[in-house]
């Protein structure tokens, strides 16, 4: 609506007046065309008392009504959900309707068919691989949206110099601990990525750990230093290559009727690190996407560009 409200003297004076309670907005409320008819009518009905107290009275009244309605809504939803919970099957019940033939099939045939020891990884990256592809694209779309909203790289450079920044790299303790900790975090993230089909973890959690390591690096040694090493071009290339690889690796099932998701690579011996066919490369691709997404979120919110 307004591009630079700070530089608009008329607007800022109106705002200060309103904040100090000296502005009479009933006139603007009464003028037709830009207010909803209900509030116009309610002010016009009390024309003799067309002062600020009447207006704030209505504001208070509508706030009061809002609070009452919101409380009623909250209590209603809480009671409804508690009633539902009371009618659910018992917690930990082996005969619950959710434990049906689908879950049984995933657990009993999953290792044999996908080669993954971790049934959840086998499920989300083999049987339901398209679902995970959609998740990766949700992350990619949100990065695009954040880029559109937060990008300062071409215009309005003055915004980024207004905030003060603490130089953590001069602090001996922070620098020493981080020099030790950042490689450890990265190695742990890579371990989670590569063991996604063998142990709890996988692309999403491993990517989040890798992204946390990169964010700590950027926080301590400064955003400029971080963006020199991990350039915007590198991030774009990695994300696009990962998503493209995922698409190519899973789109062949369109030609086989989309119901036959066997890997080209053989599942191998379950339990080995080089097993489970396509699950390991797909885990790595998802991990790269998540890592770059987290890092780009941090950089866009902190700096306005990659």
């Amino acid at each position: 609506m307004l591009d630079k409200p700070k530089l608009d003297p008329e607007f800022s004076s109106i705002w200060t007046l309103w904040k100090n309670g000296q502005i009479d907005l009933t006139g603007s409320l009464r003028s037709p065309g830009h207010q909803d008819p209900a509030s116009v009518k309610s002010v016009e009905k009390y024309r003799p008392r067309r002062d600020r107290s009447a207006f704030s009275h209505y504001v208070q009244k509508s706030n009061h009504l809002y609070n009452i309605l919101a409380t009623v809504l909250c209590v209603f939803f809480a009671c409804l959900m508690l009633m539902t919970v009371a009618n659910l099957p018992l917690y930990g019940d082996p005969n619950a309707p959710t434990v049906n033939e689908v879950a049984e099939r995933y657990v009993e045939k999953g290792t044999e068919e996908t080669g993954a020891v971790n049934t959840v990884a086998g499920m989300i990256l083999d049987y339901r691989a398209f679902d995970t592809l959609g998740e990766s694209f949700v992350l990619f779309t949100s990065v695009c949206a954040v880029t559109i909203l937060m990008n300062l790289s071409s215009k309005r450079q003055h915004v980024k110099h207004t905030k003060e920044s603490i130089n953590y790299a001069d602090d001996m303790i922070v620098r020493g601990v981080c020099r030790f900790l950042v490689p450890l975090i990265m190695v742990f993230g890579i371990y989670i990525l590569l063991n996604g089909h063998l142990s709890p973890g996988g692309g999403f959690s491993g990517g989040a750990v890798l992204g946390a390591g990169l964010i700590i690096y950027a926080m301590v040694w400064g955003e400029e230093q971080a963006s020199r090493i991990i350039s915007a071009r590198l991030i774009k290339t990695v994300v696009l290559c990962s998503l493209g690889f995922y698409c190519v690796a899973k789109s062949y099932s369109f030609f086989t009727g989309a119901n036959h998701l066997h890997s080209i690579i053989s599942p191998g011996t379950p339990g080995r690190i080089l097993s489970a066919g396509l699950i390991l490369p797909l885990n790595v691709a998802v991990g790269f996407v998540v890592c770059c997404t987290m890092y780009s979120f941090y950089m866009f919110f902190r700096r306005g560009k990659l």
Partner: protein
Amino acid sequence: MTALLTYCTNLFNNYEEVVAVILFSIGFCILLFSRNLIKKVVGLDIMDTGVFLLLASRGYIEGRSVPIIVDGVTSMENYINPIPAGLVLTGIVVSVSVSALMLSLTVRIYRTYRTLDVDALYMMMSVSKGGKR
């Protein structure tokens, strides 16, 4: 009377779901009553957490372990339900994306209006409409 008693017993047995509902309600209250846009985003994230807790607790089966096949035992009698875990994974990803999008919108609103209070924002939007543009 007995119906009410069964009700309470069921609620006590499903205590994890009750906690999930309480978390969801807390998040909903923050979303409705807080005037600060960032606190509204936090409230939405707490609501998400409640949903994840509900899903994860629905997948649990008494006395069974995580669905990672150990020693070649592939009988369903030994493992919990793996499907809610996959659903929670999807939910977490969507939750992160939605929070990032909403926070960046909040940043843009703050840069334009220099406030995060919804009432002040509404007032400023109506003043700027009637006044200048």
